Protein backbone atom coordinates (compact mmCIF):
# COMPACT_ATOMS: atom_id res chain seq x y z
CA UNK A 1 0.00 0.00 0.00
CA UNK A 2 1.24 3.47 -0.86
CA UNK A 3 1.95 5.59 2.19
CA UNK A 4 -0.58 8.16 3.37
CA UNK A 5 0.53 11.76 3.78
CA UNK A 6 0.85 11.10 7.50
CA UNK A 7 3.00 8.00 6.95
CA UNK A 8 5.20 9.92 4.54
CA UNK A 9 5.73 12.55 7.22
CA UNK A 10 6.36 9.84 9.78
CA UNK A 11 9.05 8.17 7.66
CA UNK A 12 10.77 11.49 7.02
CA UNK A 13 10.71 12.19 10.75
CA UNK A 14 12.82 9.08 11.33
CA UNK A 15 15.70 10.86 9.59
CA UNK A 16 15.84 13.48 12.32
CA UNK A 17 18.40 13.39 15.10
CA UNK A 18 18.37 14.82 18.57
CA UNK A 19 19.49 18.45 18.49
CA UNK A 20 18.72 19.00 14.80
CA UNK A 21 17.75 22.38 13.45
CA UNK A 22 15.17 21.61 10.77
CA UNK A 23 13.44 23.61 8.05
CA UNK A 24 10.16 22.14 6.89
CA UNK A 25 8.54 23.24 3.63
CA UNK A 26 4.84 23.76 3.04
CA UNK A 27 2.50 20.74 2.62
CA UNK A 28 3.55 17.25 3.67
CA UNK A 29 6.88 18.53 5.07
CA UNK A 30 4.93 20.62 7.60
CA UNK A 31 3.35 17.44 8.96
CA UNK A 32 6.79 16.05 9.84
CA UNK A 33 6.74 18.21 12.98
CA UNK A 34 3.97 16.00 14.35
CA UNK A 35 6.16 12.88 14.30
CA UNK A 36 9.36 13.91 16.06
CA UNK A 37 10.42 10.66 17.79
CA UNK A 38 9.93 10.50 21.55
CA UNK A 39 12.79 11.77 23.66
CA UNK A 40 14.22 13.72 20.77
CA UNK A 41 14.38 17.49 20.56
CA UNK A 42 14.46 19.35 17.26
CA UNK A 43 14.12 23.04 16.59
CA UNK A 44 12.16 24.29 13.61
CA UNK A 45 13.52 27.11 11.50
CA UNK A 46 11.03 29.20 9.59
CA UNK A 47 12.72 31.20 6.85
CA UNK A 48 10.75 34.40 7.47
CA UNK A 49 12.92 34.84 10.56
CA UNK A 50 12.05 32.47 13.38
CA UNK A 51 14.24 29.77 14.90
CA UNK A 52 12.21 27.73 17.37
CA UNK A 53 8.73 27.64 15.87
CA UNK A 54 6.08 26.50 18.34
CA UNK A 55 2.55 25.20 17.80
CA UNK A 56 -0.35 27.25 16.45
CA UNK A 57 -1.55 29.84 18.97
CA UNK A 58 -4.70 29.58 21.03
CA UNK A 59 -7.31 32.24 20.28
CA UNK A 60 -5.90 34.17 23.22
CA UNK A 61 -2.33 33.95 21.91
CA UNK A 62 -3.18 34.81 18.30
CA UNK A 63 -0.88 37.56 17.02
CA UNK A 64 -0.68 38.91 13.47
CA UNK A 65 3.01 39.68 14.04
CA UNK A 66 3.91 36.06 14.69
CA UNK A 67 3.73 33.95 11.55
CA UNK A 68 5.68 31.19 9.84
CA UNK A 69 6.95 30.93 6.28
CA UNK A 70 3.56 29.57 5.22
CA UNK A 71 2.05 32.81 6.55
CA UNK A 72 0.21 30.84 9.24
CA UNK A 73 -0.07 32.28 12.71
CA UNK A 74 2.26 30.40 15.08
CA UNK A 75 3.94 30.76 18.44
CA UNK A 76 7.59 30.90 19.46
CA UNK A 77 8.93 27.87 21.33
CA UNK A 78 10.95 28.27 24.51
CA UNK A 79 14.47 29.29 23.56
CA UNK A 80 13.42 30.73 20.21
CA UNK A 81 15.14 33.59 18.46
CA UNK A 82 13.66 36.01 15.93
CA UNK A 83 15.63 37.89 13.28
CA UNK A 84 15.61 39.46 9.84
CA UNK A 85 15.21 37.65 6.53
CA UNK A 86 18.86 38.37 5.73
CA UNK A 87 19.97 36.68 8.95
CA UNK A 88 17.56 33.82 8.32
CA UNK A 89 19.03 33.09 4.92
CA UNK A 90 22.56 33.58 6.20
CA UNK A 91 21.75 30.55 8.37
CA UNK A 92 20.26 28.65 5.48
CA UNK A 93 22.81 29.57 2.81
CA UNK A 94 25.66 29.10 5.26
CA UNK A 95 24.69 25.48 5.84
CA UNK A 96 23.75 25.84 9.50
CA UNK A 97 20.38 24.12 9.17
CA UNK A 98 20.85 20.37 9.78
CA UNK A 99 17.91 19.09 7.74
CA UNK A 100 15.66 20.58 5.11
CA UNK A 101 12.47 18.84 3.99
CA UNK A 102 10.61 19.99 0.92
CA UNK A 103 8.29 18.86 -1.83
CA UNK A 104 9.02 18.62 -5.55
CA UNK A 105 7.47 18.03 -8.98
CA UNK A 106 10.49 16.11 -10.25
CA UNK A 107 13.89 14.84 -9.12
CA UNK A 108 16.49 13.26 -11.39
CA UNK A 109 19.46 10.91 -11.03
CA UNK A 110 21.87 13.86 -10.94
CA UNK A 111 20.17 15.20 -7.85
CA UNK A 112 18.49 18.02 -9.74
CA UNK A 113 15.15 19.19 -8.39
CA UNK A 114 12.23 20.96 -10.08
CA UNK A 115 9.64 22.27 -7.68
CA UNK A 116 8.51 25.80 -8.40
CA UNK A 117 7.42 26.30 -11.98
CA UNK A 118 5.29 24.56 -14.57
CA UNK A 119 5.65 26.43 -17.87
CA UNK A 120 2.29 27.49 -19.22
CA UNK A 121 0.83 27.80 -15.73
CA UNK A 122 1.09 31.00 -13.75
CA UNK A 123 4.50 31.25 -12.13
CA UNK A 124 4.10 32.36 -8.55
CA UNK A 125 7.75 32.21 -7.61
CA UNK A 126 10.31 30.14 -5.80
CA UNK A 127 10.05 31.79 -2.40
CA UNK A 128 12.91 30.43 -0.32
CA UNK A 129 13.15 27.04 -2.04
CA UNK A 130 16.18 27.83 -4.21
CA UNK A 131 18.09 29.12 -1.20
CA UNK A 132 17.10 26.09 0.86
CA UNK A 133 18.25 23.52 -1.69
CA UNK A 134 21.47 25.42 -2.41
CA UNK A 135 22.29 25.94 1.26
CA UNK A 136 21.49 22.63 2.90
CA UNK A 137 23.76 19.63 2.83
CA UNK A 138 21.08 17.31 4.14
CA UNK A 139 17.85 17.59 2.17
CA UNK A 140 14.93 15.19 2.01
CA UNK A 141 12.50 15.56 -0.85
CA UNK A 142 9.09 14.16 -0.12
CA UNK A 143 6.53 13.66 -2.89
CA UNK A 144 4.32 11.08 -4.51
CA UNK A 145 6.33 8.67 -6.63
CA UNK A 146 4.24 9.33 -9.73
CA UNK A 147 1.76 11.97 -10.82
CA UNK A 148 -2.00 11.44 -10.82
CA UNK A 149 -1.65 10.44 -14.47
CA UNK A 150 0.91 7.79 -13.53
CA UNK A 151 3.95 9.66 -14.84
CA UNK A 152 7.09 9.04 -12.83
CA UNK A 153 8.54 11.97 -10.92
CA UNK A 154 11.94 10.22 -10.61
CA UNK A 155 13.59 10.94 -13.92
CA UNK A 156 16.80 10.59 -15.87
CA UNK A 157 16.65 14.31 -16.43
CA UNK A 158 14.17 16.82 -15.04
CA UNK A 159 11.89 18.27 -17.72
CA UNK A 160 10.75 21.31 -15.72
CA UNK A 161 12.90 24.33 -14.91
CA UNK A 162 15.17 23.54 -11.98
CA UNK A 163 14.98 24.82 -8.43
CA UNK A 164 18.48 23.54 -7.78
CA UNK A 165 21.19 21.56 -9.54
CA UNK A 166 22.86 18.48 -8.09
CA UNK A 167 21.70 19.04 -4.54
CA UNK A 168 19.29 16.19 -3.71
CA UNK A 169 20.53 12.98 -2.09
CA UNK A 170 17.44 11.57 -0.36
CA UNK A 171 13.82 11.11 -1.47
CA UNK A 172 10.88 9.72 0.46
CA UNK A 173 7.93 8.93 -1.81
CA UNK A 174 4.67 7.20 -1.02
CA UNK A 175 6.29 4.01 -2.38
CA UNK A 176 9.93 4.08 -1.35
CA UNK A 177 12.92 5.61 0.39
CA UNK A 178 15.56 6.36 -2.21
CA UNK A 179 19.09 7.74 -2.16
CA UNK A 180 20.94 9.31 -5.06
CA UNK A 181 24.58 8.33 -5.62
CA UNK A 182 26.83 8.14 -8.68
CA UNK A 183 24.04 9.49 -10.91
CA UNK A 184 21.69 6.66 -10.04
CA UNK A 185 18.71 6.18 -7.78
CA UNK A 186 19.34 3.58 -5.06
CA UNK A 187 16.33 1.84 -3.60
CA UNK A 188 16.81 1.68 0.17
CA UNK A 189 13.36 0.82 1.55
CA UNK A 190 9.91 0.15 0.18
CA UNK A 191 6.56 1.08 1.65
CA UNK A 192 4.93 -1.83 3.50
CA UNK A 193 3.30 -4.15 0.98
CA UNK A 194 4.67 -2.34 -2.07
CA UNK A 195 6.67 -4.53 -4.45
CA UNK A 196 10.03 -3.69 -5.97
CA UNK A 197 8.40 -4.35 -9.34
CA UNK A 198 5.82 -1.60 -8.80
CA UNK A 199 8.51 0.83 -7.70
CA UNK A 200 10.64 0.08 -10.75
CA UNK A 201 7.64 0.47 -13.05
CA UNK A 202 7.00 3.90 -11.65
CA UNK A 203 10.64 5.04 -11.72
CA UNK A 204 11.82 6.52 -15.04
CA UNK A 205 15.46 7.11 -14.03
CA UNK A 206 17.99 4.31 -13.59
CA UNK A 207 17.57 2.61 -10.21
CA UNK A 208 19.94 0.30 -8.39
CA UNK A 209 18.08 -2.39 -6.43
CA UNK A 210 19.92 -4.43 -3.82
CA UNK A 211 19.07 -8.10 -3.28
CA UNK A 212 17.08 -7.36 -0.20
CA UNK A 213 14.91 -4.26 0.03
CA UNK A 214 13.48 -3.98 3.53
CA UNK A 215 10.06 -2.55 4.23
CA UNK A 216 9.82 0.74 6.10
CA UNK A 217 9.30 0.34 9.84
CA UNK A 218 6.89 2.58 11.70
Amino acid at each position, binding site marked *: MALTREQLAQRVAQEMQDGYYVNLGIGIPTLVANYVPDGMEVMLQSENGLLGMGPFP*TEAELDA*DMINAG*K*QTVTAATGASIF*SSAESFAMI*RGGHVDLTVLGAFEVDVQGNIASYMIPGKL*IKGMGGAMDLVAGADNIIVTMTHASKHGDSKLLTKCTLPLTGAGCIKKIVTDLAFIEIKDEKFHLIERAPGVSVKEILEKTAGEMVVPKDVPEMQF
Partner: protein
Amino acid sequence: MSGFNKVVDSYAQALAGLENGMTVLAGGFGLCGIPENLIQEIKNKGTKELTFVSNNCGVDGFGLGVLLEDRQIKKMVSSYVGENKLFEEQLLAGDLEVELTPQGTLAEKMRAGGAGIPAFYTATGYGTPVGEGKEVKEFNGRKYIMEESITGDFAIVKAWKADTYGNLIYRHTAQNFNPMAATAGKITVVEVEEIVEPGELDPAHIHTPGIYVDRVILGTFEKRIEQRTVRTA
Protein backbone atom coordinates in the same frame (compact mmCIF):
# COMPACT_ATOMS: atom_id res chain seq x y z
CA MET B 1 12.77 68.82 12.07
CA SER B 2 16.09 69.81 13.55
CA GLY B 3 19.06 67.84 14.74
CA PHE B 4 18.13 64.20 14.79
CA ASN B 5 14.39 64.47 15.20
CA LYS B 6 13.01 62.47 12.28
CA VAL B 7 9.33 62.59 13.23
CA VAL B 8 6.90 63.94 10.62
CA ASP B 9 3.25 64.68 11.27
CA SER B 10 1.48 63.62 8.10
CA TYR B 11 1.67 60.82 5.59
CA ALA B 12 1.92 63.47 2.88
CA GLN B 13 5.14 64.73 4.46
CA ALA B 14 6.32 61.16 4.97
CA LEU B 15 6.28 60.51 1.23
CA ALA B 16 7.19 63.96 -0.05
CA GLY B 17 9.42 63.59 -3.09
CA LEU B 18 8.07 60.28 -4.28
CA GLU B 19 7.69 60.56 -8.06
CA ASN B 20 6.51 58.53 -11.01
CA GLY B 21 8.98 55.91 -12.16
CA MET B 22 10.84 55.57 -8.89
CA THR B 23 11.99 52.34 -7.23
CA VAL B 24 10.52 51.64 -3.80
CA LEU B 25 11.76 48.98 -1.38
CA ALA B 26 9.04 47.70 0.92
CA GLY B 27 9.40 45.67 4.10
CA GLY B 28 7.02 42.86 5.01
CA PHE B 29 6.48 39.14 4.48
CA GLY B 30 3.02 38.32 3.20
CA LEU B 31 0.81 40.77 5.11
CA CYS B 32 3.03 40.63 8.20
CA GLY B 33 5.02 43.76 9.00
CA ILE B 34 3.95 45.72 5.95
CA PRO B 35 3.83 49.53 5.95
CA GLU B 36 0.04 49.59 5.49
CA ASN B 37 -0.51 53.30 5.71
CA LEU B 38 2.44 54.32 3.57
CA ILE B 39 1.11 52.00 0.86
CA GLN B 40 -2.31 53.63 1.19
CA GLU B 41 -0.69 57.04 0.91
CA ILE B 42 1.03 56.01 -2.33
CA LYS B 43 -2.42 55.01 -3.57
CA ASN B 44 -3.79 58.40 -2.53
CA LYS B 45 -0.93 60.23 -4.25
CA GLY B 46 -1.54 58.28 -7.44
CA THR B 47 2.17 57.91 -8.18
CA LYS B 48 2.62 55.67 -11.23
CA GLU B 49 5.11 53.43 -13.02
CA LEU B 50 6.65 52.37 -9.76
CA THR B 51 9.06 49.48 -9.37
CA PHE B 52 8.52 47.71 -6.08
CA VAL B 53 11.09 45.50 -4.44
CA SER B 54 9.13 43.46 -1.92
CA ASN B 55 9.03 39.78 -1.08
CA ASN B 56 5.31 39.65 -1.97
CA CYS B 57 2.66 41.87 -3.52
CA GLY B 58 -0.07 41.73 -0.87
CA VAL B 59 -3.54 40.40 -1.60
CA ASP B 60 -6.59 41.78 -3.38
CA GLY B 61 -7.57 44.92 -1.48
CA PHE B 62 -4.74 44.89 1.07
CA GLY B 63 -1.04 45.58 1.16
CA LEU B 64 0.68 46.31 -2.15
CA GLY B 65 -2.33 44.73 -3.85
CA VAL B 66 -4.17 48.05 -3.57
CA LEU B 67 -1.63 49.70 -5.86
CA LEU B 68 -2.59 47.33 -8.64
CA GLU B 69 -6.13 48.74 -8.71
CA ASP B 70 -5.04 51.91 -10.50
CA ARG B 71 -2.08 50.22 -12.20
CA GLN B 72 0.50 52.14 -10.22
CA ILE B 73 3.02 49.30 -10.28
CA LYS B 74 5.08 48.74 -13.40
CA LYS B 75 7.38 46.06 -12.05
CA MET B 76 7.68 43.80 -9.02
CA VAL B 77 10.94 42.28 -7.78
CA SER B 78 9.74 39.49 -5.47
CA SER B 79 10.26 35.90 -4.46
CA TYR B 80 6.59 34.92 -4.40
CA VAL B 81 3.62 36.70 -5.95
CA GLY B 82 0.22 36.06 -7.35
CA GLU B 83 -1.81 35.75 -4.16
CA ASN B 84 -4.40 37.97 -5.84
CA LYS B 85 -6.44 37.91 -9.04
CA LEU B 86 -5.68 41.43 -10.16
CA PHE B 87 -2.01 40.61 -10.12
CA GLU B 88 -2.55 37.57 -12.30
CA GLU B 89 -4.71 39.51 -14.76
CA GLN B 90 -2.21 42.33 -15.17
CA LEU B 91 0.69 39.91 -15.47
CA LEU B 92 -1.02 37.84 -18.17
CA ALA B 93 -2.09 41.02 -20.00
CA GLY B 94 1.52 42.16 -20.03
CA ASP B 95 0.73 45.26 -17.98
CA LEU B 96 2.95 44.18 -15.13
CA GLU B 97 6.52 42.92 -15.16
CA VAL B 98 7.84 40.50 -12.54
CA GLU B 99 11.44 39.68 -11.69
CA LEU B 100 11.35 36.56 -9.58
CA THR B 101 14.25 36.47 -7.14
CA PRO B 102 14.97 33.76 -4.57
CA GLN B 103 13.95 34.94 -1.13
CA GLY B 104 17.43 34.73 0.42
CA THR B 105 19.04 36.36 -2.59
CA LEU B 106 16.46 39.15 -2.40
CA ALA B 107 17.21 39.75 1.28
CA GLU B 108 20.95 39.72 0.64
CA LYS B 109 20.67 42.03 -2.40
CA MET B 110 18.98 44.65 -0.23
CA ARG B 111 21.43 44.14 2.62
CA ALA B 112 24.32 44.50 0.15
CA GLY B 113 22.72 47.60 -1.35
CA GLY B 114 22.63 49.26 2.04
CA ALA B 115 26.13 48.08 2.94
CA GLY B 116 27.95 49.42 -0.12
CA ILE B 117 28.56 46.00 -1.62
CA PRO B 118 27.68 46.14 -5.32
CA ALA B 119 27.62 42.37 -5.89
CA PHE B 120 28.19 39.01 -4.23
CA TYR B 121 28.33 35.35 -5.17
CA THR B 122 25.78 32.75 -4.14
CA ALA B 123 25.10 29.12 -5.03
CA THR B 124 21.37 29.89 -4.92
CA GLY B 125 19.95 29.70 -8.42
CA TYR B 126 22.99 28.24 -10.14
CA GLY B 127 21.83 25.89 -12.90
CA THR B 128 18.27 27.28 -12.73
CA PRO B 129 16.43 29.97 -14.72
CA VAL B 130 17.58 32.48 -12.07
CA GLY B 131 21.20 31.87 -13.02
CA GLU B 132 20.72 32.41 -16.74
CA GLY B 133 22.91 35.17 -18.12
CA LYS B 134 24.65 35.71 -14.82
CA GLU B 135 28.38 35.44 -14.29
CA VAL B 136 29.47 32.08 -12.87
CA LYS B 137 32.58 31.59 -10.77
CA GLU B 138 33.95 28.55 -9.00
CA PHE B 139 35.12 28.63 -5.39
CA ASN B 140 36.43 25.49 -3.66
CA GLY B 141 35.08 23.29 -6.43
CA ARG B 142 31.52 24.62 -6.36
CA LYS B 143 29.87 26.96 -8.83
CA TYR B 144 28.28 30.23 -7.77
CA ILE B 145 26.50 33.02 -9.61
CA MET B 146 27.08 36.72 -9.20
CA GLU B 147 24.11 38.72 -7.93
CA GLU B 148 24.06 42.52 -7.92
CA SER B 149 22.77 44.56 -5.03
CA ILE B 150 19.53 46.55 -4.91
CA THR B 151 18.92 50.08 -3.69
CA GLY B 152 15.79 52.21 -3.92
CA ASP B 153 14.82 55.83 -4.28
CA PHE B 154 12.54 55.25 -1.30
CA ALA B 155 12.25 52.55 1.33
CA ILE B 156 8.96 52.12 3.16
CA VAL B 157 9.29 50.30 6.43
CA LYS B 158 7.05 49.15 9.27
CA ALA B 159 8.53 48.99 12.77
CA TRP B 160 7.05 48.55 16.21
CA LYS B 161 8.76 51.33 18.16
CA ALA B 162 10.97 54.19 17.14
CA ASP B 163 12.62 56.87 19.16
CA THR B 164 12.57 60.34 17.66
CA TYR B 165 16.14 59.77 16.35
CA GLY B 166 14.79 56.98 14.15
CA ASN B 167 16.25 54.06 16.11
CA LEU B 168 13.91 51.14 15.45
CA ILE B 169 12.69 47.96 17.10
CA TYR B 170 10.54 45.43 15.24
CA ARG B 171 7.93 43.18 16.82
CA HIS B 172 8.22 39.38 16.50
CA THR B 173 8.34 38.11 12.90
CA ALA B 174 7.11 41.46 11.60
CA GLN B 175 10.84 42.16 11.36
CA ASN B 176 11.47 40.10 8.17
CA PHE B 177 12.62 42.30 5.25
CA ASN B 178 12.17 45.60 7.07
CA PRO B 179 15.72 46.03 8.40
CA MET B 180 17.30 45.51 4.97
CA ALA B 181 14.83 47.79 3.21
CA ALA B 182 15.60 50.44 5.82
CA THR B 183 19.31 50.43 4.94
CA ALA B 184 18.90 50.54 1.18
CA GLY B 185 16.55 53.45 0.52
CA LYS B 186 17.90 56.82 -0.54
CA ILE B 187 15.04 58.13 1.58
CA THR B 188 13.86 55.73 4.26
CA VAL B 189 10.42 56.31 5.75
CA VAL B 190 9.22 54.30 8.72
CA GLU B 191 5.75 53.98 10.18
CA VAL B 192 5.51 52.77 13.74
CA GLU B 193 3.06 51.89 16.46
CA GLU B 194 4.78 53.94 19.12
CA ILE B 195 7.28 56.79 19.24
CA VAL B 196 9.42 57.17 22.36
CA GLU B 197 12.09 59.60 23.49
CA PRO B 198 15.78 58.94 22.74
CA GLY B 199 17.26 56.88 25.55
CA GLU B 200 14.13 54.80 26.11
CA LEU B 201 15.31 52.02 23.79
CA ASP B 202 18.24 49.92 25.00
CA PRO B 203 21.22 50.75 22.72
CA ALA B 204 22.14 47.05 22.58
CA HIS B 205 18.71 46.00 21.35
CA ILE B 206 18.05 48.43 18.55
CA HIS B 207 17.39 46.50 15.35
CA THR B 208 17.88 49.42 12.96
CA PRO B 209 20.10 52.33 14.04
CA GLY B 210 18.66 55.76 13.27
CA ILE B 211 21.43 56.58 10.80
CA TYR B 212 19.47 54.66 8.15
CA VAL B 213 16.19 56.44 8.84
CA ASP B 214 15.06 59.74 7.36
CA ARG B 215 11.43 60.06 8.45
CA VAL B 216 9.30 58.47 11.17
CA ILE B 217 5.52 58.64 11.37
CA LEU B 218 3.08 57.30 13.94
CA GLY B 219 0.34 55.12 12.47
CA THR B 220 -2.52 52.83 13.41
CA PHE B 221 -2.59 49.40 11.88
CA GLU B 222 -5.17 46.85 10.83
CA LYS B 223 -2.63 43.97 10.76
CA ARG B 224 -4.72 41.66 8.63
CA ILE B 225 -3.94 37.94 9.05
CA GLU B 226 -3.41 35.92 5.88
CA GLN B 227 -3.61 32.37 7.31
CA ARG B 228 -5.46 32.32 10.60
CA THR B 229 -4.39 29.07 12.25
CA VAL B 230 -5.27 28.37 15.87
CA ARG B 231 -5.39 25.41 18.21
CA THR B 232 -7.83 24.80 21.00
CA ALA B 233 -6.39 25.75 24.34
